[in-house]
């Protein structure tokens, strides 16, 4: 029951939040925080009371037996980490949206539903239910961008919707085919993992899955929705996109292809790594050329998530561990950067790098926070981001040196765009937009401190994180025929 609460609590919490304003001012905000905190508490409780085996918690019950649909929820360290991130980011979103008044109840309900759907993705092992949550996740995010976004928001929301819905078809088709061709109709991922498809079939099915995952990740050439969605989304939208939605893509890649299609994955892994390598360089180069701060960070997200793709396709212990760490690190660091840029836009009304500058004089707390995540963006040792990248590069050295070299190039280019970003915002003389700038308020500062602490603590003491991820990494490697090193 604990696991289904991870989905049901935010879902019905979101419903309740809709009516919260009737009872008092700001009740929708307190309500959302309460729901998220409760979800987090339940998560901690069920993780602490978890089994020591492969899964911390496993829930299995029939849902619609005639269609082979089950409630099959399973949580290991990786899922737990992602669930924790989703609840924490939910709280962060409430904090930083304190000044959103337009349809405030609906806004907070949508945040809850995004979290609910993402939590479903992180838990479901019945493939049909997984696909259901996968599609469901798009809707609240679509609303968030389309209703509370900036500027060209309808365009961005449509682009987001079309890209993700079309890509979801690949996943859905593959899942239906697998369920229907099974001897006894089932969508149980563990049962289907023993179906024994031939390699060509596996490759085709994998491509269906991978299409959905790679669009969500996103990896070039499927990334065109992300820069638009990020720029036009409200701050909370950007945070949920970067911290949660992109991570579902990474999570899916991490979880399902090695489990369901090991041979297929082995067959296409070199192409996956090549695509990842291309994405790393392409994203980084384009990040150097942006004049819109949010767009710039969006392109860095593309580069970093491409590293995750490289890691997953690497198929060795280090690469997978790196992919896992990078996922979590990027959730922290990119959400924090979007939070800061959101604060900036709220105060100055612009994200144009050419109109900003000189914040070290007017807003020291902002400048200091920015410097921390600047270091994380360029993968400074001591941040979790470095750990992730270094592990992936180590894995690449075991697999193919060329990919390792390309990943190393990204380390250099990341300095170029990161210094460009901080140079345009924090350095320089204050301009007309930034001459009067209110420094970060406590409700913005606390989320930043939390995210910064996560980045640095996991960077310096990765033992905890690696320990959580171990079972998932080992399980992903087992079908590939690669034991622990």
């Amino acid at each position, binding site marked *: 029951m604990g696991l289904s609460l991870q989905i*049901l609590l935010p*879902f*019905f919490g*979101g*419903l309740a939040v*809709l009516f919260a304003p009737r009872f008092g001012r700001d009740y929708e905000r307190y309500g959302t925080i309460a729901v998220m905190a409760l979800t987090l508490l339940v998560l901690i409780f069920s993780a602490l009371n978890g089994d020591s085996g492969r899964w911390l918690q496993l829930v299995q019950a*029939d*849902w619609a*037996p005639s269609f082979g649909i089950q*409630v099959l929820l399973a949580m290991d360290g990786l899922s737990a980490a992602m669930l924790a991130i989703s609840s924490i980011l939910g709280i962060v979103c409430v904090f930083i949206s304190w000044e959103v008044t337009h*349809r405030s*109840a*609906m806004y907070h309900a949508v945040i809850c539903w995004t979290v609910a759907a993402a939590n479903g993705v992180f838990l479901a092992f019945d493939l049909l239910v997984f696909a259901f949550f996968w599609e469901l996740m798009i809707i609240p995010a679509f*609303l968030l961008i389309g*209703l509370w976004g900036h*500027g060209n928001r309808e365009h961005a929301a449509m682009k987001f919707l079309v890209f993700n819905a*079309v890509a979801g078809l690949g996943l859905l088709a593959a899942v239906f085919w697998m369920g229907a061709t099974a001897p006894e109709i089932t969508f149980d991922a563990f049962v289907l993992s023993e179906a024994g498809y031939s390699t060509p079939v596996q490759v085709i099915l994998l491509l269906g899955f991978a299409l959905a995952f790679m669009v969500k990740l996103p990896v*070039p*050439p*499927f990334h*065109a929705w992300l820069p638009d969605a990020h720029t036009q989304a409200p701050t909370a939208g950007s945070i949920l996109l970067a911290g949660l939605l992109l991570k579902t893509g990474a999570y899916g890649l991490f979880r399902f292809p090695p489990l369901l299609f090991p041979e297929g994955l082995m067959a296409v892994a070199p192409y996956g790594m090549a695509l990842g390598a291309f994405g790393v360089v392409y994203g980084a*180069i*384009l990040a*150097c*050329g*942006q*004049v*819109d701060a949010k767009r710039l960070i969006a392109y860095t997200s593309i580069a970093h998530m491409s590293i995750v793709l490289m890691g997953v396709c690497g198929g060795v*212990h280090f690469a997978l*561990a790196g992919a896992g760490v990078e996922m979590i690190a990027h959730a922290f660091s990119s959400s924090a950067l979007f939070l800061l840029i959101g604060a900036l836009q709220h105060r100055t009304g612009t*994200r144009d790098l*050419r109109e900003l500058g*000189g914040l070290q004089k007017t807003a020291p707390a902002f400048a*200091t926070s920015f*410097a921390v995540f600047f270091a994380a963006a360029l993968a*400074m*040792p*001591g941040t979790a981001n470095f750990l992730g990248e*270094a592990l992936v*590069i*180590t894995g690449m*050295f*075991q697999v193919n040196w060329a990919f*390792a*070299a390309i990943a*190393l*190039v990204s*380390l*250099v280019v990341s*300095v170029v765009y990161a*210094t460009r970003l901080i*140079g345009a915002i924090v*350095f*320089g*003389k204050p301009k007309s937009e930034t001459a009067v700038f209110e420094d970060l308020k406590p409700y913005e500062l606390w989320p930043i401190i939390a995210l910064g602490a996560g980045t640095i603590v996991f960077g310096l003491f*990765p*033992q905890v994180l*690696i320990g959580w991820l171990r079972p998932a990494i080992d399980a992903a490697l087992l079908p590939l025929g690669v034991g*622990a*090193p």
Partner: protein
Amino acid sequence: MLAYLLLLVPLPPLGGFLLLALDPYRLDRRPVLALSLAAGIAPLVLFLPLAIAYFTGAVGDMIAPAFTLNFGQYEVALAMQLDPLSAIGASTVTVVASCVMIYAADYMSGARVADLRRFFALMNLFQAGMLSMVLAADSIVFFLGWELMGLCSFFLISYNMTSPRAFAAGQKAFVMTRIADAALLAGLLLLFLEATSVRMDELIPAGLAAEESRAAIIAVLLLVGALGKSAQLPFQTWLPTAMAGPTPVSALLHSATMVAAGAVLLARFAPLIEATPGVAAATAIAGVATALFGALCAIAQTDVKRLLAYSSISQIGYMLLAVGMGAPGVAMAHFVIHAFFKSLLFMAAGVLSHAGGGSTAIEKLRGTAYVAPISFATYTVGAAALAGFPILSAGWWSKEAILGAAVEAGPFGQFLWLVALGGAALTGVYAYRPVLCALRKPLHDAPKGHESWLAVAPLIFLAIMSVLGGYLVEPIIHEMGGHAPHAGLGIEVMGALAAITGLIGSVAVTFIPSWNARIKRARRLRAGMQMDAIYYAFLVRPYRRIVRLLSGRDGRLGKHIGEGPEAQEGGMGDPVGTATVVFGLWLARVVTAPFMPDRFDTVIMRGAREAQRAGLWTRRLQSGRLRDYALGFALGLGVLVILGWGMTWG
């Protein structure tokens, strides 16, 4: 138990950084200075007893484990160690950094409190980085410290945050060193894969045991890492521009830390370098070429800080030569001596140029010798050490050791010795130029200025070390397990002659007007052979073109539709992403095209009319309020979920 004292050494500066950066107490000027000084000098206080105990033999080599990470069979143990290299390196770093911090407390006293806080926070972090690098017993802590220095150098060089020039200098330093750092990281990771451990004492044997081609690649990667951080050819261009930072930054960066860190890296991994003769030769050649190049460029400088920057480039070239000749002990001896006199030179030059009106131009130093006599005297001592003034200066002893090591290394070494000897003579030519200039009568009004004791005290101490440090050279070489080269009296006389030739040359270029004018005309040499311009033309500009093209900012990839800054820029970038969108739209059109002149239209239209009627009724449901829709949607979904749940109870 004593070993755990090691772990404490980098902590005070780290704590100082945290307190100053987060600033929970809103510290004012005096507390900031007091805190940062305490944090900066504490490592010396902590490490000095250890170092004394170590050098007197009271304690032996030791390793202090911090904590262990577990990656399956790979055990990653983070630790700090005390061995000859780390003892010598950390002693030097703590001593020199303490001097620089005391000097900086005076030098920066005019800054705003906020700037002061930032400056000292970064200086402390920088110290912590260098200390953890020197003391590291594993490649992770080593690289952590190495990169921390890179990050701090970026912020310190661009300390003057409103100046675009300073920012560009910091960015350039960061990017150039990061290129080398990427190579170093690759090298360390490859070593890690060979050794399945990160411990230094296991990495080096594993590197030696690796197959030949792989060992060579690792050695080359490590060498590249050192070249970048130490601003050796071909990475040297970032260092002269880095002079945009305040003087104490230069004094710390150039003497015992950042720039010299490359030498420490090579000394640490010297067995791997020596194991591959080609790489050892490359190290020596890179070193000697940089030594000569730096000296030549330094002669043509008209700015005392840039002159000192090129002298650092040149002097670290000598250290690389020593490593390449298989004498890392000699390199470390020069590292120590160089740290003393180079920090001295920068700090004394800072005082002198303040006295001369604030400009760092050599010409502007005229007459400052009479205003700031102590700084002038200490500068002279430092310059003598830099030029290797025979016997009296510490620099002579360490440089002779390097030259001797080259001579002993066979015919190839003797050729390099000849080049290095030429470099040594040139060193004299530039080293004394600011000294001689400061002695001349001022051109216009007499310069005004004063020397505060806070600034002068470290200068005097370092000047003493720059003289007496000669006694340290041989013990250091022995401590590092090498032997002091004795190449014979003839070689030593040659070295002395080179140094004296340099002094004469320096007098000549200062006082013979035509020679002086020749230096002023040497524009190409002054700009570092225009390597900067070459890099700009062949690397930076093409890169920027690619970036502008791909991001659509030059408008060659089609017009952007809509609004926002990217539309103002005029173009639609991201060709790969755009191609996907265009392809998708085309596909959608192609798929729907056959159905466009719709045959079933009429049938459907009839249906549509019926539907419209039904729609008129359902319109009542469509209140237009999104909240209602969401409610309906959510309720429906909830009912489904509950229904589904209900089935499971059966």
